[in-house]
């Protein structure tokens, strides 16, 4: 079907440009992180990543990520079900609002939580009365992470559910299946791969969030420092090897996520 005669040269030039661009822009920074992390030997690397504060930062990051991904998964499933299975007033507004966190700068995301729960907020006296600390504490970090990753899962699910249509669920409902059975037997098998894919993306973003978390964290070593914040701290203290060593853990995570993503995409295509 090839009608173009000159496509041979153009093809390899374009592939060449793409390969060079991706190598310089994407692969080189990755290799550099790993290279610098091990530059001073494995011993230095191990000392840096097993440091007490490093371990606490990893622990906090995992804790925050698990909570944020869990809440966003619940939200994503219900929101996508709600927006694709039912017609109601205000649906368009609701659907537009879900995507809002994508367009808001992470710094502004942090700012709005400071304004909501901080000292100048109307809620502050009540929160203080109840002894709840949100700003410059772990709950603030969790909230900011949820905000930043809010649309990730629902955005993966909505197109799949829209493409699937509602006939199967309607038939099941008319035959007397209850809501949970319908979801488990009909909806879930369709969205399985998209859901996993969304969870993977959401996990990556939640672990790596920097701007919003930076506003809301009190930057207390071992208490409110997540991995990206700890990296910043090391970097600003000119401990470059340490910063890159902790970074290399996040690089491993990113590479694993990309591999998982490819597998999930392949599985999803195979099922469909």
């Amino acid at each position: 079907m090839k009608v173009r005669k000159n496509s041979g040269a153009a093809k390899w030039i374009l592939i060449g440009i793409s390969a060079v661009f991706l190598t310089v822009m994407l692969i080189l920074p990755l290799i550099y992180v790993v290279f610098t992390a091990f530059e001073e030997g494995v011993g230095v690397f191990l000392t840096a990543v097993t440091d007490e504060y490093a371990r606490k930062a990893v622990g906090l990051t995992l804790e925050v990520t698990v909570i944020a991904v869990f809440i966003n998964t619940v939200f994503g499933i219900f929101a996508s079900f709600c927006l694709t299975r039912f017609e109601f007033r205000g649906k368009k507004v609701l659907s537009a609002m879900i995507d809002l966190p994508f367009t808001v700068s992470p710094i502004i995301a942090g700012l709005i939580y400071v304004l909501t729960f901080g000292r100048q907020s109307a809620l502050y006296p009540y929160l203080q009365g109840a002894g709840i600390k949100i700003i410059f504490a772990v709950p603030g970090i969790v909230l900011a992470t949820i905000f930043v990753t809010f649309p990730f899962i629902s955005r993966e699910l909505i197109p799949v559910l829209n493409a699937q249509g509602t006939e199967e669920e309607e038939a099941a409902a008319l035959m007397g299946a209850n809501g949970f059975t319908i979801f488990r037997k009909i909806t879930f098998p369709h969205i399985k791969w998209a859901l996993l894919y969304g969870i993977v993306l959401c996990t990556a973003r939640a672990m790596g969030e920097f701007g919003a978390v930076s506003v809301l964290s009190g930057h207390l070593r071992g208490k409110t420092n997540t991995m990206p914040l700890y990296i910043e701290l090391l970097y600003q203290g000119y401990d470059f090897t340490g910063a890159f060593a902790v970074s290399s853990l996040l690089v491993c995570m990113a590479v694993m996520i990309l591999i998982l993503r490819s597998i999930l995409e392949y599985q999803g295509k195979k099922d469909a």
Partner: protein
Amino acid sequence: MKRKNSKKKRVIPGFGLSLGITVTLMGIIVIIPLCSLVIFSARLSPSDFIATVTRPRVLSSYQVSFSTAFIAAVVDAVMGMILAWVLVRYDFPGKSVMNGMIELPFALPTAVAGISLTHLTTANGWVGSIFHRFGIEIAYTRLGITIALIFIGIPFVVRSVQPVLEKFDAQYEEAAHILGASRRQTVFRVILPEIAPSLIAGFTMSFARGLGEYGSVVFIAGNMPYETEIAPLMIMSELQEFDYASATSIALVMLAASFVILFVNAALQSRASKIVTGIA
């Protein structure tokens, strides 16, 4: 079986539960915090607001943010277009690896990307030393900020153009070729108009994302006032001094800018779809 605004019984159960959970979580996470921004802004005095957002240092931070994000989005649009084309139209060894790599900027934490790009591009870094010989400095200049933003924005363009290009039938190109169009005419008259909406959408997303980006930029920028200080950093430094009024004022301008960008995108999208479908 779609009934608009129907008050009749819905066939599929679970409407109340799913809407309830959706709206509750949305309220806590998105709506209440945004409302508090609105409430807080209403308390700002207009003269203070104008004085804050027109301070020379703030104005220059807008200029830095807009110019670097714009140039980065243009580069991303061109490179993203080429990448999407290569990934859809050609077969070559390593294609699936290349395809899998596109999302790396989504998966890699921005702070990690930031410190790595900074070290690579300083005067004695792997890449920076080459450019340094020609008198070009990358790290701690606007060029460095632009490079970090190109990194962040590239997946938006590729992932926006790629699906459209996949659906675009090669028959159109063949028809154009048979009718005597040159390769160049085919690209500019047949292919580009078809993918323009998705290209604009990708450009808009990477531009909007670039305006707000903080993590990857803050390390490479050097943060010199009037030179390489970006607007999100201005908000951050006001916050660190607990000057919430100034931080909110600057943030409002940035928010307004991103809404304008999204609005222009929506307008261009509907215009482009009218051209393609031929409905005026």
